């Protein structure tokens, strides 16, 4: 049970206590109005707020404050409850107990928040209820980035999100956010301080999507490329938005951000074929002794330059990553890695950094850890950043300086698009 001790000072103030506006004020005002309609709240009384839901304690305290402000406006004067050593009011205090006892429970049901207020007065008990929508912009249990790797959430939505791309940067009015979902590409323009949907284009597909659907967006010089299993779309961004999809067109996907290096991953290139009915890439590996080509199956890849050649790191299907230095030889294996990796350019914080997701599954929170590859060894650098749910996709940006991640918040269910960058100054 929360009791707002500090609020006793409010009771000394006339009617409207000065308080900063809270996003919960509107709901608090509505609940108090219902309460006042059920019975008088004018006079001395106690208020207690019990948080039975998933709101965090600071939010519950904020709501309690909002309620007290609204009650004060109705003539309610908060009196702190008098308690004895045992917690119960001492006998001498019973006679002076205030006539109004308001108990508010911040509960949740199937639909979301429901606030329930019990008004106890000498004339009886009244109960009022208010389903409450969470105010825009409020989110619980936000993951906070820690030094080295920084996460900036740029977009949230309830609809599943596969990938996103930013053209320009807000608050530039020409900035554009492009979001890929299983069924469409949505184009958002930055207007009046927020992203507004400008247009969307359906991604038609005749065949069912695989369950672990993957997709990728690339924007290069105003040209938009959208990769989906068995479908490739091209289009334009900016003022003239357009999208054309070619179902059935087998297009090799860029699996790394370091430019579109022609050729298969195992040959130092950055292109690979996604199995359209599965969730992994198939990459032909030419046998060094001229035998039949084999296939590497991997979920993601990162490319790095070393020893005058290219290194390919492939996140395999067996919860480990392979380091390939060309050909079919595996130079090293890194265990305990997740399915998605992204290789970035050198930074002062970590030469040749590789971002790696954690090893949890759909039901757990996730992490992204920076690794540095040196002497065929992977060394964790700094602390991982945590996400409040699984990271659904991770791709390096085309400039190799940052990465973009789509994750799902297990608390809210929302999909979150984040830019990831490595800070050098902490």
């Amino acid at each position, binding site marked *: 049970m929360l009791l707002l001790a500090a609020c006793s000072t409010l009771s000394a103030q006339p009617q409207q206590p000065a308080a900063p506006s809270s996003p919960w004020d509107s709901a608090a005002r509505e609940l108090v109005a219902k309460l006042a309609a059920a019975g008088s709240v004018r006079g001395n009384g106690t208020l207690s707020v019990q948080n039975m839901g998933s709101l965090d304690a600071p939010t519950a305290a904020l709501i309690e404050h909002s309620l007290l402000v609204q009650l004060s406006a109705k003539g309610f004067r908060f009196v702190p409850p008098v308690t004895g050593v045992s917690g119960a009011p001492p006998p001498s205090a019973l006679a002076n107990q205030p006539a109004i006892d308001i108990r508010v429970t911040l509960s949740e049901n*199937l*639909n979301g*928040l*429901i606030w329930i207020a019990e008004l106890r007065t000498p004339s009886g008990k009244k109960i009022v209820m208010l389903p409450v929508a969470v105010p825009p912009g409020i989110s619980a249990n936000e993951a906070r980035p820690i030094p080295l790797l920084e996460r900036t959430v740029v977009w949230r939505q309830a609809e*599943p999100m596969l990938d996103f791309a930013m053209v320009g940067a807000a608050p530039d009015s020409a900035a554009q956010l492009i979001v890929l979902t299983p069924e469409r590409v949505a184009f958002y323009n930055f207007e009046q301080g927020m992203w507004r949907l400008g247009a969307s284009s359906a991604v038609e597909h005749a065949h069912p999507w695989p369950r672990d659907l993957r997709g990728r967006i690339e924007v290069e010089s105003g040209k938009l490329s959208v990769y989906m299993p068995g479908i490739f779309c091209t289009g334009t961004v900016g003022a003239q938005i357009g999208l054309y999809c070619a179902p059935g067109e087998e297009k090799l996907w860029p699996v790394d951000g370091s430019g579109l290096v022609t050729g298969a991953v195992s040959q130092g290139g950055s292109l690979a074929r996604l199995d359209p009915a599965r969730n992994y890439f198939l990459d032909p590996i030419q046998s060094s002794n001229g035998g039949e080509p084999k296939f590497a199956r991997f979920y993601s890849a990162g490319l790095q330059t070393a020893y005058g050649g290219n290194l390919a790191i492939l996140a395999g299907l067996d919860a480990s990553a392979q380091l390939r230095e060309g050909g079919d030889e595996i130079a090293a294996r890194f265990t305990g890695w997740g399915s998605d990796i992204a290789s970035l350019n050198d930074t002062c914080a970590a030469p040749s950094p590789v971002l790696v997701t954690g090893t949890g599954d759909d039901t757990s929170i996730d992490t992204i850890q920076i690794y540095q590859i040196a002497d065929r060894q992977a060394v964790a650098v700094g602390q991982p950043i945590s996400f409040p749910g699984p990271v659904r996709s991770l791709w390096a940006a085309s400039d190799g300086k940052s990465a973009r991640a789509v994750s799902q918040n297990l608390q809210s269910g929302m999909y979150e698009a984040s830019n990831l960058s490595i800070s050098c100054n902490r």
Partner: protein
Amino acid sequence: MKHRTFQFLAIASVGCFALSLHSARRPRYGGMLRAEVGAAVLSIDPAFPADTVDQINVREKLLALVCDRLVTLDEHGQPKPALATSWQATPGNKLWSFRLRSNVMAQDGAPLSADDIVSVLEAANPRWRIAAVTNPDGSTKLNIELPSADPSLPVELAMPGNFVFRRGANGALVGTGPFQVSGWQAGRQAIFTAFDAAWQGRPFVDSIELKMGRAVRDRLIDLETGKADFVDVPPDEARRAGDRGARIRGSLPDELLSLEFARGPHTAEDPAFRRALALSIDRSALVNFVLQKQGEAARSPVPQWSTGTAFLFAAGPDPAQTKQLAVQFQNAPALLLGYDGANALEKAVAERIAVNAREAGIRVNVQAESGAGNAFDARLVRRKMISPVPRIALTEFLREWAPLEGVELAALPDPVMPEDLYARERSAIENDRVIPLVFLPETFGLSARMRDWTSPLPASGDGWPLAQVWLEGEGP
């Protein structure tokens, strides 16, 4: 934090999509998932009679592997598209129109047709008038005309009674779901294989081998020895199994175990007697000792997670008031309390109630039900919520309790204000003809190699999420 604006009247969703996207450890394809359950299901066909609550429950879960519905429910009980991609109602909510998803393949290799859907829904809902109409753009919609207004029709179409299928040449069910039945030995064993052309995407596992009618002890041994990946576990066994190292997962509770009094010339017809008995029951002890903390004390018909108001119902036993009431029944004949003799949990609960009653000075004899002929004063009854939406769940409970009350209870308005729902819950149990005892969850044992298990929303008709799970160590 949950955030949802409930819009029963809304013309529904186009943007939602059933697909769930995967994660850090991406799922692997392949492998056979070995499942074992206690119920012996004789047929997956809903037209085939099932005897027990457990049989009906498991059959619905199996149907959900094989068949789809027009609409399913999201985690907040809101309708979301499945075989129907959007829907709308005309003013008055008597005439509804559902736009059908195109290119949905059935497990016999032919597309699902609108006529298939019409015939199965008409059979399940004989009072509806259903017609398939082709739109100018070539898509198909289903027009449903109801005998009376129903603002929540999409939610009701998500219930298990509305699975869509057609019948093959041999009368067998042909669905569009992620698995197809490839072997069936009634009451003993079934094989389900992945349906590659499933519109929601092929499942990750190649097949499911289901053993039915397995004793709980055998199921748990198979789980512990790596012979099973998924077993159902009675709630009262779950804690012990967990203590022995089994990986146990539970749902939100969606089954009400209550004491129901028949109408008749018994001591129990005296409201004061029922009140005294209700006050004597220590529900916390039932949850902590009998259920081994797998469940919740029930003092309302519908649980807290669904209504948000269950906490308002009175708490705890009241020894002083109980004894005050019970003193007048010291010489009354003992109450005969019946329970399902095949259910160890019910037996333990019945015996505990008798102990509580005796401490209060009320005599209760417990006896297993053995077919017809028993004249019980009261029975332990398990009732599943038929929907996570509290209005629908409570409406069904009220319908089932109407014979006990002796009156047909008025329908709840739709949409219903939370205050009205709370008031109706309270009035449903205020005369103690039904005494809620505990809410039971579904509990499962999972093998260590099973990944991505997430408990579905209870009572949503979604079944077990076996199309979403994958097996560690399997795959190409």
